[in-house]
């Protein structure tokens, strides 16, 4: 694993938490387990704030947070907006449709303009992998990656870790199975890094075309010599994968990727990879069922499973606000 620090320009909340010193949250891959736990513990405190009658604290009063979204998103954008408002920040939402993007303005030009307007924190969702990394190199704003292409979605992974931890306590040694389209999933990638940092046993399961290079059976695989990916277990068969699992995370299927393009059909996928009650019975009793949403009804999860007592899908959404408050607070908290 790579652990080089990203060279932050100055500590942001150094007095309060000596272990947090980053201006960016771009992915979980470069965070230490202590940093991840600090974020999760801070989220716990934020959850307490959200349970108050007036769920607000003035921690970021006077700070402007800009949500710049180049991809449609309902829940992630709303979650960041609520999180920023709960901390007393001013929030501006910009989506690609409204902005100058359509006039041919480049990403960096747009970001420079936002900085010149006085924003302190930029929350960026972009359909191209690496876009927030480019931006972070050319701005002094704090940057939060709210999802980039197939690459990373660190706040989603943090809320997943937070949800797992609330139910299971320590994650070390816990078997977590991620099922579906790993190749195109930023949620899977960020979760794999975060879970590995916390010592969980990660199993990936999906049709072979949906397993990316480095996490395919019969090839040089993550964790081996010269391959800087976490070591995970790969299973193409769902039944073996689920054996004894404590968490089952199904990924959203993009319909346009099915229908003959990468899988024979939705029907075939459902036959082989849908989490239904029979298959779920192979997991540990009470295993958590998770999904980053939105769920394709009856595809990734059988409806009965999605609505069962084991499903924590709605709780994931709720926890997302607390986690994003923690991220914004730590990144921007006491700046200037």
């Amino acid at each position, binding site marked *: 694993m790579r652990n080089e620090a990203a*060279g932050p320009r100055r500590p942001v909340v150094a007095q309060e938490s000596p272990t947090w010193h980053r201006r960016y949250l771009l*992915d979980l891959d470069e965070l230490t387990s202590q940093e991840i736990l600090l974020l999760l513990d801070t989220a716990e405190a934020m959850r307490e704030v959200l349970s108050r009658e007036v769920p607000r604290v003035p921690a970021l009063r006077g700070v402007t947070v800009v949500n710049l979204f180049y991809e449609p998103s309902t829940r992630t954008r709303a979650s960041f907006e609520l999180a920023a408002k709960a901390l007393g920040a001013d929030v501006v939402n910009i989506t690609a449709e409204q902005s100058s993007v359509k006039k041919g303005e480049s990403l960096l030009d747009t970001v420079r303009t936002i900085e010149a307007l006085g924003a302190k924190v930029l929350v960026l969702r972009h359909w191209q*992998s690496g876009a927030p990394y480019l931006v972070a190199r050319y701005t002094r704003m704090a940057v939060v990656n709210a999802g980039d292409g197939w690459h990373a979605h660190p706040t989603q992974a943090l809320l997943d870790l937070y949800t797992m931890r609330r139910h299971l306590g320590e994650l070390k040694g816990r078997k977590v199975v991620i099922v579906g389209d790993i190749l195109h999933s930023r949620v899977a990638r960020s979760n794999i890094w975060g879970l590995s940092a916390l010592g969980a046993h990660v199993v990936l399961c999906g049709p072979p075309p949906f397993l*990316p290079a480095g996490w395919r059976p019969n090839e040089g695989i993550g964790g081996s010599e010269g391959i800087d990916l976490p070591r995970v277990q790969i299973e193409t068969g769902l039944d073996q994968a689920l054996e004894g699992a404590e968490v089952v995370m199904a990924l959203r299927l993009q319909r346009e990727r099915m229908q003959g393009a990468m899988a024979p059909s939705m029907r075939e996928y459902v036959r082989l990879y849908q989490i239904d009650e029979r298959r779920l019975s192979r997991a540990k009793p009470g295993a958590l069922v998770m999904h980053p949403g939105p769920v394709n009804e009856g595809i990734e999860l059988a409806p009965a499973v999605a609505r069962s007592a084991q499903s924590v899908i709605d709780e994931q959404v709720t926890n997302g606000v607390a986690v994003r408050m923690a991220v914004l607070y730590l990144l921007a908290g006491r700046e200037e």
Partner: protein
Amino acid sequence: MSSIAIRGGHILDPSQGLDIVADLLIVEGRIAAVGPDAGADVREVIDASGLLVLPGLVDIHCHLREPGLEHKETIETGALAAVRGGFTTVCCMPNTEPPLDSAPTIRWLQGRVSQVGLVRVLPIACVTRGRRGKELADLIELAEAGAVAFSDDGEPVAEPQLLRLALQYASVLGLPIVEHCEDKSLSAGGVMHEGWVATRLGLKGIPPAAEEAAVARAIALCAETGGRLHLAHISTAGSVGWLRLAKAQGIPISAEVTPHHLCLTHEIIMGEGGVPGGLLYDTNAKVNPPLRPRADADACVAALAEGAIDCIATDHAPHSVEEKLCEFDLAAFGISSLETALALCLSLVHQGRVSLGRLIEAMTIGPVRALGLHRHVPGLGTLAVGAPGDVTIVDPEREWRVEPDCFASKGKNTPLAGRTLRGKVVCTIYGGKVVWKE
């Protein structure tokens, strides 16, 4: 009578097996003598003691961008970049706007080249009209106008039947087809090698089979038609395997490899940390075919050392800053490489993986033979008496830092920025005239 004497250099000319410390005399633009005390009475003298004296380097694959794409490069800036890199002859690819697909465009290019005058430019013309892959260009007329080969570089000739036709005409004309081997249905949307780094970065990969399947197909058509086939920029161990097999069967084929596919690997796109998030997404390392893993680069080095790969070509592909300073998926493919090619390749010599003689062969007589350029310019790529007075003088031990802002090329797009290389071109002579001197 204009003449230059180059004194006391280490003269290396693989075409003649020449490897001596001696003097070299150029008279009236041609090599006049090689030996001790050649041209003792000449006034223009270059002291080359401790330096390598080589035939002018030859690059059979570069993009000069003119006409139409002058924001990336012009014939003049490209020529300046070439001579600084030690090249006195370059073959330019026809993917300009308009493309070089007709005799008038070739003649226009030759006119511009002679105005610039720094370097010999031998044009490669399109295989198909407009590079559209639909119908053959007028190959015979193009050959008469001075095209030395045909290629739709950047695009493969996608239709097998069309490539077969082109090879049949090529066999009559005695000119090679230079094929960019890529099966577009396998590479579609890909922006880097399909491997663990692409997974790490969440970028769409280009599998090695996209190149290898196209190499195999081209070899089958070459074997059947007997037309000369030259494989552009091969990059994988699998392609090297097909190439060896084809040569063992006597199929009339040759191949080139670029300095970056020999010396760099896909990890370079991640960078070495020290940036926010620790991942660089270096668009300056985005190139087609993509940089591959170490095992592929090693297979290419071994094949070059043994001669299975005939030569080195730069695939110099300059782009403007805006075309690289953007999201990785949007960035243009290509590396500006004329000015770093020799020094980067010399690292293989310093590491003991390729002999100096073989490397120089692969950058002089190797490319000349691969495309049959000696039939257009007798003596090209050699220091034989009577050959063109093209000479490159190199300080093999000199260390220098790659600073793209100091490039003569308009293309500052190199993943080598800031890197220290060993071996520097100190003087380039073209047709008996010093065209670059430090």
